[in-house]
């Protein structure tokens, strides 16, 4: 029997609620809100409460996918990055920079978000930058 309680921070939004993931034999089976964490004081939202379910969900994408002839196909990271870069350039040239939006994440580091908006503003030339917490 290998049961453990792992203290961590909710991966969803920028609030950073404290949570405890309970595992049996390396499998995450339950989520509990941390009571001593001053941010959430023993409470969570519905997303936080269900963290343990999505980690092991069979619906998670584990590889980049591109839709080819109507079907999603698994492709390599190299292929997908090249495809995205080419398409972004094409759309920008054809419709202008403001036809593109950059969706960042409240759970990225400040530095990552800084780089992301820099890419949007300096490379692509748009102020269309937003993040997941507003979706």
């Amino acid at each position: 029997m290998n049961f453990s309680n792992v203290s961590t921070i909710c991966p969803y939004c920028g609030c950073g609620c404290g949570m405890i993931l309970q595992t049996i034999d390396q499998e995450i089976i339950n989520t509990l809100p941390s009571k001593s964490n001053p941010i959430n004081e023993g409470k969570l939202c519905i997303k936080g409460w269900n963290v343990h379910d999505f980690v092991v969900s069979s619906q998670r994408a584990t590889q980049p996918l591109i839709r080819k002839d109507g079907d999603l196909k698994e492709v390599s990271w190299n292929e997908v990055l090249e495809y995205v870069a080419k398409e972004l350039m094409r759309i920008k040239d054809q419709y202008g920079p403001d036809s593109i939006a950059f969706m960042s994440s409240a759970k990225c580091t400040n530095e990552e978000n800084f780089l992301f908006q820099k890419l949007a503003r300096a490379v692509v030339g748009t102020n269309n930058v937003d993040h997941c917490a507003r979706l």
Partner: protein
Amino acid sequence: MSEKIAKHVSELLKQGKIEAFIGLKEQQGSKHIIPHIYTDGDNLDGFYTGFNEGADAKRYPLVKTLFHISKRYPEARLGILARGCDERGLKELYKWNQLNTEQVVTVGLACSKELAEFCECYKPYPDEFVEGEKVPGVDSERVKKVSALEEPERLKFWLDKFSRCIKCYGCRNICPMCFCKECSLEEMEFIETGKIPPENPIFHLTRAVHMAGRCIDCGLCEEACPVDIPLRILYKKVNNIIMDHYSYRPGFGEEKSPLNILGSRPDENNS
């Protein structure tokens, strides 16, 4: 002062009377208090001892944790830190054939007067305890106050409170007595799933009816509610109704709930 419990747990583990003990731990550095499973009697590092400090004792659904482990390891003998409410939870789970008495060794803890008053708890101690002192049970003033409201005001009181619900399901998720595989709160026929706010008061009444004769009044639901809905008043109230009509209090005695309609097989009876 909680050295007594730590010593007792250490002995139980060393003597092989239990394989694991479900308690609390104070994490080094962060000082966060989290549930913890101790398996080595010589290593109780961080064993949390502040059980009775203040009314905001860090209480977790330890019984539910034990329940999860026992589902995976039905043979394992498990020790558990048990306050009055934890013990009530265990007893009720035995009665509902969800746990086997043979599997569980409780290490009792009597609650402080302060906590008993905060909980308005009618039995703030388990039958046997290693630590703490017996303080008298407390009647619920909150229930009396809300029950005394004139009907229109009472309706307004509850609809007002329920209207704040964000349907996080925290009250159900944390509840040691919520063990159903399929929950009515996720059934399209009762509750429109995927829609917020939930229908008022259907969502709360559905849960209240299901807790009648089952809720052991631990109060973990109310503590988990992000919008401070006084859930404990609601469930204390439904239990009072069960008490008045059927003389049944969940978590007490050997007798099963009057709502045990189907009965069970002889091999399932372990209380």
